[in-house]
């Protein structure tokens, strides 16, 4: 009896370890309403843990030219959001896999090692040339739970294509 219970526990732990690799559930920060409101109007308010604190500082310090757009904020909101992002940014080892090589003050989440690793097998016709997607920065197009900062593989639905099975 005990042997069966132990086996069950080991198996469950094993399954847990495997699925934890597939998405970041459990590691996403609590959503700050100011951040989501102010930074989620033109694109998904991206989870802070997808970039390092340094990368976030660069972005928040250059909102007048935010990847070609103007995303300026009143000072109070800007500082509050920056503090939130710094507190919840990728740190330690995760900062290295979410590092964005080569960019000064405009780090791109889609250029981080981890992100590229997760998306580099997707043919361009499914995203770039897909009218309903257009860009890998358009998370919500395929990740139905993106607003809740959940990106589970089995919940992916690419418009015009369907589920994604790695």
């Amino acid at each position, binding site marked *: 009896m005990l042997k069966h219970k132990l086996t069950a526990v080991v198996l469950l732990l094993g399954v847990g370890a495997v699925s934890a690799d597939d998405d970041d559930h459990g590691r996403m920060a609590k959503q700050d309403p100011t951040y989501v409101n102010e930074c989620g*109007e*033109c*694109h*998904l308010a991206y989870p802070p843990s997808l970039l390092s604190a340094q990368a976030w500082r660069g972005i928040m310090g250059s909102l*007048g030219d935010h*990847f*070609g*757009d*103007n*995303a*300026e*904020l*009143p000072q109070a909101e800007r500082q509050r959001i920056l503090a939130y992002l710094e507190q919840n940014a990728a740190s330690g080892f995760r900062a290295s896999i979410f590092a964005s090589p080569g960019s000064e003050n405009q780090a791109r989440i889609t250029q981080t090692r981890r992100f590229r690793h997760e998306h580099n097998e997707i043919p361009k016709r499914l995203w770039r040339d897909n009218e309903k*997607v*257009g*860009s890998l*920065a*358009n998370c*919500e*197009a395929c990740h139905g739970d993106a607003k809740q900062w959940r990106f589970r593989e089995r919940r992916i639905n690419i418009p015009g294509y369907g589920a994604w099975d790695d």
Partner: protein
Amino acid sequence: MKSFLLIAMFTFAATAQAAVVDDLLAEYAGQGATASSPEAGRENWYKNWSVNGEQRSCTTCHGKDLTQSGKHKKTGKTIDPMSPRLNRERLTDRKKIEKWFRRNCKWTLGRECSAEEKANFLVFLRNQ
């Protein structure tokens, strides 16, 4: 009862929109805006502005039909309709209006809008 509530909601929203717009119009008048013109607002809304070698317009993201959803040119994100009649949340939040005037004038026109231009936009939009 249900229709009464609906009417009450619409009236409340319309009142909220009117109050915020009137507030801002008064402020813009204080900053030098003269009589505000919906026609001038419309013209500026649909106009093509040349910025950084690009043609930009409010319609670039908001679309040509204010009763329809727009789409962010770069990210593809859906933008709710601008029409305050259809979208009861439009023109109800003063801070939001000012924030977007600042960002979008700078991007679309390449500069901040004058008080008069902002007033014209508001009197144009509020009847859409």
